[in-house]
């Protein structure tokens, strides 16, 4: 199942449970929370795959097989994205191993990525809150419940960031490898 289809199915479930007319829907809070978690986890998968693909491109350039495997071990071991959330710190740490100033390059490509970064970090705070069932309004911009519109906004943010990440990494690899990787 593709990421987009999985997310669209949750949207459909939200409508099926809550309907489309105005008014508060209590059962939909659970769906909103599930939706937020799926958005974050799908984004994590995307980022992890992008990182793996980039490292495979880099290591392929090393002709000596012994050195190639040493490099591969160093670039993929203790990766934050393997076990942690795709927050801006973990992303900067993992992609920074590839030799670029990750977030600065993203800001240079599109200044809106600065706001998107903050939105991404809020999504991940909600992911942790939902996973631990610990809703501290001091951490969650004063809220303890999320709306469908919040999650839709995060989904759009992740889609825009995914596109930006792809371009930044592709251009970085093109610069250091001397060819466009994809």
């Amino acid at each position, binding site marked *: 199942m593709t990421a987009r289809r999985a997310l669209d199915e949750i949207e459909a479930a939200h409508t099926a449970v809550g309907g489309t007319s105005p008014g508060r829907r209590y059962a939909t809070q659970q769906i909103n929370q599930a939706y937020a978690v799926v958005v974050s986890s799908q984004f994590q998968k995307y980022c992890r795959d992008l990182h793996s*693909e980039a490292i495979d491109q880099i290591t392929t350039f090393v002709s000596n097989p012994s050195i190639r495997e040493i490099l591969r071990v160093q670039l*993929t071991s203790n990766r934050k994205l393997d076990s942690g959330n795709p927050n801006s710190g973990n992303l900067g740490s993992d992609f920074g191993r590839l030799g670029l100033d990750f977030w600065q390059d993203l800001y240079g490509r599109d200044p809106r990525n600065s706001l998107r970064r903050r939105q991404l970090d809020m999504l991940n705070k909600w992911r942790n809150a939902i996973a631990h069932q610990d809703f501290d309004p001091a951490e969650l911009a004063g809220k303890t419940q999320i709306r469908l519109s919040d999650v839709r906004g995060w989904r759009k943010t992740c889609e825009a960031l995914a596109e930006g990440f792809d371009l930044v990494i592709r251009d970085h690899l093109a610069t250091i490898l001397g060819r466009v990787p994809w």
Partner: protein
Amino acid sequence: MKNSRKRTPVRVGDSRFLHVGTRRIRVRVIEDRGPIGVGGRRLVRVQRLNSETEEPLAFEVPAEDLSSS
């Protein structure tokens, strides 16, 4: 040069060998990452075995780099 390493399909849970530097180390396949490598080749995540005195180390390699002997 003929590649003398045996090649059998790699699955999660398999124990395999990998040449790193001058050593041949034993690893266990802990995750199939799918065809996300260069040219669509399959990547797997492996964990180094026989590391009782160290923290387990997990990293990624192309499935084709693993051997069964």
